[in-house]
């Protein structure tokens, strides 16, 4: 049976390859320090499941210390990707590129159905496994296709992964670290504190104020936690269910759907949702790390206002 650990091992091997490519490059300034970051990342993906919690915590601090010490700053790949030869024919590039999402999507649907000897091929425990196994398979198929079509040197995949990882720098690790922070926030009662604040902000509990505080609270809470999924249970139990549904007999389906989407407006403007907002800024080498957030903010603000209005007009029973 395949578990997430198999996909993690694949990523661990990739990061180990990046570490070797950086460490063995005589051109790399402070190569060993820079390689150390990717080495620790590889250790986390290869062995994290076997290490204890405190050891994993120490690993995190090691990664942060190396990053803060400049292990990711100003690398050679800042000059952008090298195209050191004639571009290959378009179809040899587009076909593998589109293979990744197509295979990933198909595999995420098909793999969970496959059974080997009566047992499912994929472990049913991890909900994210079908998508992740699909992604891994999509990458492997696309890579095989690309390498056979383009006939590049066998070191090319690791060297170009290294180029991309170094171009993205600290943003590569930020989403995972922020997800971990979210867990520490939850453990420390940040959610309760925010819902207290939201409840205290309720001026007079008329229909409009209740809807406004619920939608605005979803967005603000999501900005803080970086994730609407963390905000939804707290805001819904604190304000949505007792007031919108309980007191004013609002429709819970309308409230839930539009409430969650109000949270997504918050996701669009928070650096805490790094994978959506900061990683693309790094991937696209924007000079302003908040450039993507700036591009999204007007849409987020208008849509939050629109959501509040939609909920106000749709959620309550018609008189």
């Amino acid at each position: 049976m395949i578990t997430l650990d198999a996909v993690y091992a694949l990523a661990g091997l990739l990061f180990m390859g990046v570490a070797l490519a950086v460490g063995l490059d005589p051109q790399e300034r402070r190569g060993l320090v820079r390689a150390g970051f990717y080495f620790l990342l590889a250790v986390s993906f290869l062995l994290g499941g076997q290490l204890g919690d405190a050891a994993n915590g120490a690993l995190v601090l090691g990664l942060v210390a190396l990053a803060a010490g400049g292990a990711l700053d100003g690398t050679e790949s800042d000059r952008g990707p090298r195209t050191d030869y004639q571009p290959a024919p378009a179809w040899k590039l587009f076909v593998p590129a589109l293979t990744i999402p197509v295979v990933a999507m198909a595999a995420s649907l098909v793999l969970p159905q496959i059974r080997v000897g009566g047992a499912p091929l994929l472990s049913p425990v991890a909900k994210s496994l079908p998508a992740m196994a699909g992604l891994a398979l999509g990458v492997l198929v696309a890579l095989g296709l690309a390498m056979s079509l383009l006939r590049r040197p066998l070191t090319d995949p690791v060297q170009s992964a290294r180029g991309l990882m170094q171009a993205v720098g600290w943003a590569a690790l930020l989403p995972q670290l922020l997800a971990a922070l979210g867990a520490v926030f939850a453990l420390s009662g940040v959610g309760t504190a925010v819902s207290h604040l939201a409840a205290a902000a309720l001026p007079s509990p008329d229909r409009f104020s209740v809807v406004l505080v619920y939608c605005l609270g979803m967005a603000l809470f999501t900005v803080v936690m970086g994730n609407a999924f963390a905000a939804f249970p707290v805001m819904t139990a604190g304000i949505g269910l007792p007031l919108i549904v309980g007191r004013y007999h609002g429709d819970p389906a309308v409230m839930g759907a539009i409430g969650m989407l109000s949270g997504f407006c918050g996701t669009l403007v928070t650096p805490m949702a790094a994978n959506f907002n900061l990683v693309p800024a790094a991937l696209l080498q924007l000079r302003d790390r908040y450039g993507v957030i700036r591009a999204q903010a007007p849409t987020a603000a208008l849509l939050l206002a629109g959501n509040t209005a939609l909920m106000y007009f749709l959620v309550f029973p018609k008189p």
Partner: protein
Amino acid sequence: MHAHGTDLLPLIGVGVLVVGFMVRLNPLAVVAAAAFATGLAAGLSPLQVLSALGKAFNDNRYVSLIWLVTPVVGVLERAGLRDRAREAVARFRRPGGGLLSVGQLLLSYFVLRQITAALGLTALGGQAQMVRPLIAPMAEAAGDAQAQPRLTPDQRDLVRAHAAASDNVAVFFGEDIFIAFGSVLLIRGVLAGGGHEVSPLSISLWALPTAGLALLIHGVRLLRLDRRLRRADP
């Protein structure tokens, strides 16, 4: 209710984040500092915070699996994928025969992305595998064709940022229409926990008005982006 004083103390980590991000310290260090500030303020010992952080970091490794795409995206980019994507834009013609503008190109991608996400096909897109190698270079090429004479560096960053934004907005306000999406199931679970049984279908149907509004708002903004690019900036 004077217990609020202690209740609010864990929010100190939020303050650490805001200040740290604002003065642009290394974000990884800011996040680690925020975890310790909040954990210690909530009465955990340093070792407890370290363990909680380590466990959560390990449990969330799947978040970083997106970097699995780097070898193949990198190989294709080195072989000229982004150049070919730029050239491909010249072949997309509007019915009238003119070139697609940045706004029209991104709006087309937006509509495709929103519809496929609504059908549960969220994997057909994404920042690392679709926007960086394909969509952003195409949008830049369209911009270079419509700007006078080419995009300025600021305009280029603006076009790139909008390529990323279109992917995000489209998927956020498309995926909730799909009844088996995680957030629909979460909404149903939370409502059920409060004693209200609601069908996943009704939740996904009530996501439709917002999806339409997102298309309208972001679509108008994308078309206005064209006007902004055409204006001869000093």
